[in-house]
């Protein structure tokens, strides 16, 4: 006759205890995942703030731009500052316009092309700034669960090795190791889920801002081309 009695589980199963019981690799994985989570949220907060600011600046600038204020005046007020978004595009275009016009450009088509290119470059730079670090969000979102799973597999492996060593299949022996191993996957998911959500949200936001910039650039380009025609023709006529 064999008697099998379940001992009361004496293991401490609090989170800290689970973390401390884990093996080195699992600990590293957990720390890395926590770091990834910190980074994710740092990016999220940063992006949230910066996108909100950008949107506000866009609105402000559009308001100022369409308020009927003279473009020269606007350029003069904006020219000295560090500009973002639409303002940066406007400043870049105006700078190019000024340079070309002051030196007495003769070809309206060349001027138009240069202004467009300047605006494109600025737009690309701005867009880059918007999408900066979103790539790491994507990486954390996709790789986080795998990293956590890796930690879990390693943890379960070691705990099974321990079981094999102790020659006891008692659940109390098995459970803490598996719990600690699963903690790694949990942390991985905790880091990855917000990362994925934030990545999708900020990508959509950035796309919106970029399309807004493109729209503005097209519009401004049209205005400038009209200006070029108006300003160059009398000059040509005079000559």
């Amino acid at each position, binding site marked *: *006759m064999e*008697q099998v*009695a379940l001992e009361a589980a004496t293991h*401490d*199963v609090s989170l800290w205890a689970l973390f401390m019981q884990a093996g080195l690799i699992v600990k590293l994985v957990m720390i890395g995942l926590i770091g990834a*989570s910190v*980074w994710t*949220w740092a*990016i999220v*907060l940063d992006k949230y703030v910066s996108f909100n600011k950008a949107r506000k600046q866009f609105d402000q600038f559009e308001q100022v731009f369409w308020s009927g204020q003279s473009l020269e005046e606007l350029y003069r007020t904006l020219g000295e500052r560090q500009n973002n978004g639409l303002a940066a595009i406007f400043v870049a275009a105006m700078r190019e316009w000024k340079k070309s016009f002051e030196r007495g450009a003769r070809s309206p088509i060349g001027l138009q092309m240069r202004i467009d290119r300047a605006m494109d470059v600025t737009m690309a730079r701005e867009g880059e700034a918007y999408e900066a670090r979103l790539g790491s969000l994507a990486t954390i979102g996709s790789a986080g669960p795998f990293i956590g799973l890796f930690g879990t597999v390693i943890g379960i492996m070691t705990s099974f090795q321990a079981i094999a060593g102790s020659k006891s299949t008692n659940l109390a022996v098995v459970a803490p190791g598996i719990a600690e191993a699963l903690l790694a996957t949990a942390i991985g998911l905790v880091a990855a889920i917000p990362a994925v959500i934030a990545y999708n949200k900020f990508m959509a936001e950035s796309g919106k801002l970029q399309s807004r910039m493109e729209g503005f650039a097209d519009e401004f380009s049209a205005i400038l081309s009209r200006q070029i025609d108006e300003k160059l023709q009398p000059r040509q006529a005079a000559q």
Partner: protein
Amino acid sequence: MKGSLGTSLVLHTLVLTWAMVSLSAPAPMTVGDVEALPVDIVPIEEMTQMQQGDKTAPMLEKPAAKPTDNQKIVEGAENAGNNDIDLKAPPTPSKKPTQVETAAAPKPSERPTPTPTPEQNEVKDIAPEETAPKPTEMAALPQAKPEPTPPKPEPTPEPTPAPAQTQAEEIPLPSSIPLPAAKPKPEPPKEQAKPVEKPVEKPVEKKPETKPAETAKPTDKKEGKKQETAKSSSSQKSDFNADEIASLLNKQEASGGGAKRSASPASTGSTKPSTASKLSLSEMDALRGQIQNNWSTIAGIEGLQGMVIRVTFRLDKSGMIIGEPEVTSTGGSSMARRTMEGGALRAVLKSQPFQNLPAEKYDAWSEVAVNFDPSELGL
């Protein structure tokens, strides 16, 4: 970026500390007192042998045979029943017991009153000889006495006078004469029931009462004669070895049934305890090993493919083979088969006496069939 990183760090530390505190240790599952569960590893055959019960009874927790009236415990009894002797045959309750009681009970009551025994002794001399053929009729008659008996008195009265004259002379004879004539045939056909109780009463009553009973004769000669004819035969038995016969015949309950007592209410189960024994794997292995050790095979024989040689033999309790083992074989080429048959037979004969076979399981290994599969040896 630095600011957001800082806030993120602060938030994480806050969340983690909150998690450490509030999720510190989930309340341990209250399992209650875990009692050690005793687990017995029981061979299945014991289980099936425990299932003895009554087939028709309803299902109860524990199978049990019909409760028995007789509670005298017989040791080693395996079959449930009221018998004092354990019999394997199932009880056949209905017919025989009733006959025994109805047929036997009334007679003793009638017999003692008439007991015109003295004449019986006299009559016996003749009655048995003449009635020798009759008993077949007689056997049927006694129960329906009123009608058939009247005709009988007629034949008997005639002989009676003659013996009556020679009463004194012939008294010694009856013991000797009737023996050969009456014993063998008339008795057995007569009701089995009768002898059961007659011998008990008659031998006691008749011998001492023969003389006093003579007075009773005149009263009912007819009745007396009726029974005389019937009893003449029975009294003859009593004359020689009634006790022996009684002891032999007394087992009217040889109708079957075991002697195992059951007090619990009848519950479903099998009526027969399964007592078939089987050799355990290790015992079979031991037997196989003995033969295998003695089985010298010839390598390199062709035509062994699919050959199976079967050697059947009987063993006595000492493990020696009784008679000649029977060898049959299938498959393979005939040449190879002949060779291998001889080898197998030699192996079996060589390995006797078979040892390590449990004596209590003799019925399992009394007959052994060994399959030799030489096909694996083919090179």
